[in-house]
């Protein structure tokens, strides 16, 4: 037990989790914005935008996140010389956020689209009947209801995103929790199982409340029909 507690003096476990939380927070925000725009593209009357949305979703949904994040460093940062901050490591941290956002935006888009599917036809017809065009109808009538219908799948994307933030290790963010766990096991292999359970529990504690919250919210906010 003392042995186990001494781990926390040598290694800063909360700091590693904090990195994952920061990655997840910013990536969730950007993925939500981008995913909503893509969903709008896909339900818009404009063929080229529909096509763009579909192509985006199909490409990013089917590529391993590991490759996207590796490309973030090698392609975007190294070759295309995209720098998102003066400080090297801040820049790489932001590129990892960008990679996570681009990947999860595809799933946000599909979640919102599934939310749009829960909106009855009559709503759109009524919106048209009172003379609303595509954008006003989407903004005032369809999307508010779609978001409420999409809370459960969106919550699931968020959960996946938090877990996937560990893959940022492949995108040069070496301070996050899976990297720390690897180092800890390397030096303290006598405590393999306690170390793993500590990290696993950390994620369970982060994720279970989100699951419960989104389930509760999706019931509470479901549009009564």
């Amino acid at each position, binding site marked *: 037990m003392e042995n186990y507690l001494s781990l926390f003096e040598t290694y800063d476990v909360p700091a590693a989790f904090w990195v994952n939380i920061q990655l997840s927070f910013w990536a969730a925000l950007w993925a939500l914005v981008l995913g909503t725009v893509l969903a709008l593209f896909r339900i818009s009357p404009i063929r080229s935008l529909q096509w763009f949305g579909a192509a985006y979703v199909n490409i990013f949904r089917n590529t391993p996140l590991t490759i996207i994040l590796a490309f973030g460093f090698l392609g975007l*940062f*190294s*070759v295309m010389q995209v720098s998102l901050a003066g*400080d090297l*490591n801040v820049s790489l941290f932001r590129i990892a956020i960008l990679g996570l956002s681009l990947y999860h935006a595809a799933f946000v888009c599909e979640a919102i689209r599934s939310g749009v599917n829960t909106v009855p036809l009559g709503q759109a017809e009524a919106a048209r009947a009172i003379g609303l065009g595509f954008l006003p109808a989407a903004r005032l009538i369809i999307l508010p209801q779609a978001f409420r219908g999409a809370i459960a799948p969106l919550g699931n994307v968020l959960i996946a995103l938090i877990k996937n933030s560990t893959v940022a290790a492949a995108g040069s963010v*070496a301070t996050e929790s899976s990297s720390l766990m690897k180092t800890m096991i*390397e030096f303290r292999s006598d405590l393999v199982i306690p170390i793993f359970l500590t990290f696993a529990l950390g994620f369970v504690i982060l994720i279970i409340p989100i699951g419960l919250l989104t389930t509760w919210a999706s019931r509470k906010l479901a549009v009564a029909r």
Partner: protein
Amino acid sequence: MRKTRYTAAAIAAVTALTLSACGGGDDDAAGSSGASGEAGGESVRIGIKFDQPGLGFDEGGSYSGFDVDVARYVANELGYTDEQIDFVESPSANRENMLANDQVDMIFATYSITDTRKETVDFAGPYFIAGQDLLVPTDSDITGPEDLEGRNLCSVTGSTSAEQIKEQYPGVQLVEQPGYAECVTAMGGGQIDAVTTDDIILAGLAAQDANAGQYRVVGNTFSEERYGVGLPPGSDRCEDINAAITQMIESGAWEEALAANTEGADYSYNEDLNPPEPEPCA
């Protein structure tokens, strides 16, 4: 009628998928020379780098480099034929874990002997002494580690080079990558000002066809890296390996291998320190 047909098709599809998956699982031997060699006492599994030209390099089915040649020589001395050697890739960050895991029997992968590493693994050797240096674009004004303040530097996760820079030059912006090739790619784009690791590795990188003429090694070494043979903790092979290394040096094969593998690279080893005397085993 239609219903059953679709269902049947669906089930057939899944079955086919499952079957092909099983098929994939069965033919074990094909193609996986990387991680899964032959089990059992006959062969020896040696961890090398696959991505360091001149030291340990995957040529597509065969391997070349100084580490590889030393590994072959030592394995032959230990009684293994060339056919009995399985080369396994051992990236810097995973070397200790691979030894502790018993995934490899020994590691010849530009593996510096350090006190920290000795806590988790055993070493034989050293069989070569290199020094940490910098690789910079040909037109760079960097002449040594003092010039790095505030610049962007790249090295490899789990290497002594990265540790050294973090301790001695805290003002340097360091990014750690899985391999030096990633570092060189980043430097090619101008986002990184210098790559640091041992001079012999850098010389091999600079001499690679794809990089020819673009980079130069600064030539101002600031450390002594003693390349050892990594062994699982408690291994009983250390003495024999040391004897093999001594034999290789005395017979002239060491010199020959080094010359052959640095040919074409702008590199000459430190003659005061090389060839080294293997340390007594722990």
